[in-house]
């Protein structure tokens, strides 16, 4: 089992530690609901150093990315990142990830912790171009600072202009006295916030200073438990739950990352183009419970007659809505917001309503 460089911070803070993707990770500190609300109303700090970072370098870097990634990496600019996925050659998804462009011969890709080895093998296998690949996962740490006071907290620690940073922009600068910090206007909570990629040895010092700087805004450390409830409210997919090797990006509703351009050939391009023309038969939807109950992964979704029409892929009690909320795949005839579906929870079949994702949007 691996530890992140912040493990002793988590233990000092009294975190409950669980094994996740081969790492000892904090699942909660003060309680999932408390941490969730801190991010919605104040500011929270997450250790997500388990995520993987690969560097792709050299004159062939873009060619490799254009082949493996569904999104159009030629649209990136230095200081810009985007969300995308790796089609698996069978209509499914190897992983979803972010690509950061440093310059036209230097990119960083950020992948899910559980998929580091699988993705590394995939990139290498597809690298018939001779792009240079480097797995930096074991020497980079990642912290997310999220919530309405995330920017104010970090502004106390850096001279970089954070206010003008649009979503999915990043810069490399000095923060809390540490140089070469990658400051990225990204996150997985539906809140305004930043993610900081730092050297392992700098992580504890930076964490400590952010905790101090955020004190006046009530900063709280946030574990994986609230990370999941936050991303669910925000309508963001989790690999392994909502998307996997058997779901197509078009079914998953992340078709905005699939770019069919004549100059870009990529894995599954023809298959996905055909699927786009013919239409998919099922789609991922968000739903809220209309009766008391909490949907969970693998629970059945039924129609009014009790026929099984799909499966819940993620679900929880929404800390903000105080209602059960979830995601799942249903036939396209049930994907219109307002469609009535039913969730089988133990012996009961409870009413739920398909809603536009995100299920919770800040006014």
């Amino acid at each position, binding site marked *: 089992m691996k530890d992140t460089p912040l493990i002793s911070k988590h233990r000092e803070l009294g975190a*409950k530690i669980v094994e996740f993707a081969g790492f000892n990770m904090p*699942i*909660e500190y003060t*309680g*999932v*609901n*408390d941490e969730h609300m801190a991010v919605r109303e104040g500011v929270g700090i997450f250790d997500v150093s388990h995520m993987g970072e690969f560097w792709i370098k050299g004159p062939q870097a873009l060619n490799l990315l254009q082949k493996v990634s569904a999104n159009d990496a030629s649209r990136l600019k230095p200081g810009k990142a985007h969300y995308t996925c790796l089609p698996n050659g069978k209509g499914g998804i190897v992983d979803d990830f972010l690509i950061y462009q440093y310059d036209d011969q230097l990119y960083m890709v950020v992948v899910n912790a559980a998929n580091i080895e699988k993705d590394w093998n995939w990139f290498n296998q597809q690298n018939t171009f001779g792009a240079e690949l480097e797995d930096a996962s074991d020497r980079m740490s990642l912290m997310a600072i999220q919530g309405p006071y995330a920017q104010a907290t970090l502004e106390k620690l850096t001279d970089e202009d954070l206010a003008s940073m649009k979503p999915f922009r990043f810069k490399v600068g000095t923060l809390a006295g540490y140089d070469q910090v990658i400051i990225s206007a990204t996150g997985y909570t539906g809140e305004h916030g930043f993610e900081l990629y730092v050297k392992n040895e700098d992580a504890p010092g930076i964490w400590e200073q952010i905790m101090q700087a955020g004190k006046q805004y009530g900063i709280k450390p946030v574990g994986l*438990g609230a990370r*999941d*409830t936050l991303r669910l409210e925000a309508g963001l997919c989790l690999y392994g739950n909502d998307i996997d090797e058997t779901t197509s990006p078009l079914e998953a509703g992340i078709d905005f990352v699939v770019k069919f351009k004549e100059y870009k050939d990529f894995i599954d391009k023809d298959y996905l183009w055909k699927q786009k023309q013919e239409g998919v038969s099922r789609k991922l939807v968000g739903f809220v419970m209309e009766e*008391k*109950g*909490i949907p*969970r992964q693998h629970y059945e979704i039924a129609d009014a007659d009790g026929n099984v029409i799909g499966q819940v892929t993620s679900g*929880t*009690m929404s800390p903000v809505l105080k209602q059960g909320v979830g995601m799942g795949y249903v036939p396209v005839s049930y994907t219109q917001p307002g469609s009535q579906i039913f969730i089988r929870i*133990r012996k009961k079949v409870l009413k739920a309503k398909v809603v536009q994702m995100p299920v919770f949007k800040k006014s």
Partner: protein
Amino acid sequence: MNIPENLKYTKDHEWIKVDGDEAYVGITDYAQNELGDVVFVEIETEGEKLDKEEVFGTVEAVKTVSDIFMPISGEVEEVNPKLEDTPEIVNKDPYGEGWLIKVKISDKSELDDLLEASKYKELTE
């Protein structure tokens, strides 16, 4: 960890407080702490006679669903009405306001099979 002396316990982390032929049942401080935020308690066995170790309901935390078992045989006479709107009382006061059910005991001799506080404490260490 709070483990009151005057209660009896099960290995599944329920407690029982006997009062004549009746008893209150809940989950222990250890259990609520392990579960984390309790967000939903579903007990639909009111009025039913259940055997010892039968499931009488479920406690749902953010990430987990846990069955809760009868410490003794008996009839579920009452479900704590406050659980419906404020399940978090199970976290805040597991031995008091956060009780789950009131039971009419069928056979008091079964109480002898339950754990004393000191024995239960060993289980949680």
